[in-house]
């Protein structure tokens, strides 16, 4: 079977829902961040595949991917600064433990 857009979309959908599963089951903030990175990667694969197979002459998908990678880097840096701060204040990075804003 010739590999085309459908196979690549299968891969990216599977990767996205693996990320969703990880985000829902994990309670550790760093592992939740890792699950979010998996989802962002699935989205990037989609953009690149559509750009390659359907919009050959244009570069829109490539630029979306480049900007998503840049924003993901900024997001990871800020998230990890916050996580380390939470660790200093609460002594744990479990999402259930950081509950001082709860009523």
């Amino acid at each position, binding site marked *: 079977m010739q590999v085309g857009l459908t196979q690549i979309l299968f891969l990216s959908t599977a990767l996205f829902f693996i990320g969703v599963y990880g985000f829902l089951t994990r309670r550790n903030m760093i592992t939740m961040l890792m699950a979010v990175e998996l989802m962002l990667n699935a989205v990037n694969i989609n953009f690149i595949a559509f750009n390659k197979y*359907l919009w050959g002459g244009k570069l829109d998908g490539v630029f979306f991917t*480049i900007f998503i990678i840049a924003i993901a880097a*900024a997001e990871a840096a800020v998230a990890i600064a916050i*996580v380390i701060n939470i660790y200093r204040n609460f002594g744990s990075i479990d999402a259930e433990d950081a509950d001082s804003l709860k009523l």
Partner: protein
Amino acid sequence: MAVSNIIFYLLSALIIACGIMSVTSRQIFRSAIYLLFCMMGVAGLYFWMQYEFIAAVQIVVYVGGIVVLIIFSIFLTHRVGSDLAEPEYKRTLFAGLASLFAFLLFWSVIKRNEFFGEQPSGELSVRRIGEEMLNYKQGGFVLPFEVVSILLLAAMIGCIVIAMRAQTEKN
């Protein structure tokens, strides 16, 4: 079966297997290493699609930047070798079912849809990416480029502020 198809299926197997191991492993350090291999697999997929520049960016930013940052933060916040807590059985069950059914729904939609005019385009020159990125005419990308650069600056300053406040409180 052509060699290129075999390479694609090997890369997909690597990505899916490492992704599943990354979200299910009970040791957080192993989880990060599986994430690293998953990112390498995605970079390999970009190489397979002949988008070498994106693959290089993926390796430099994700593998060399984000995963290393995550590993450093694991070293700062965990005792290496200790296992993560087992998630509740109910939560695992329902999260698994929700992801599985959502995947099947999306997959049935993709399977039913025909993509017209599907043909792979050739490779992409870095020169063209650079020219488009600084193109300020119709269809150029200079505005998002500038917005992202300001966002990166803001994120950098934000990280420094968050880290500094913690230190002054300590003293």
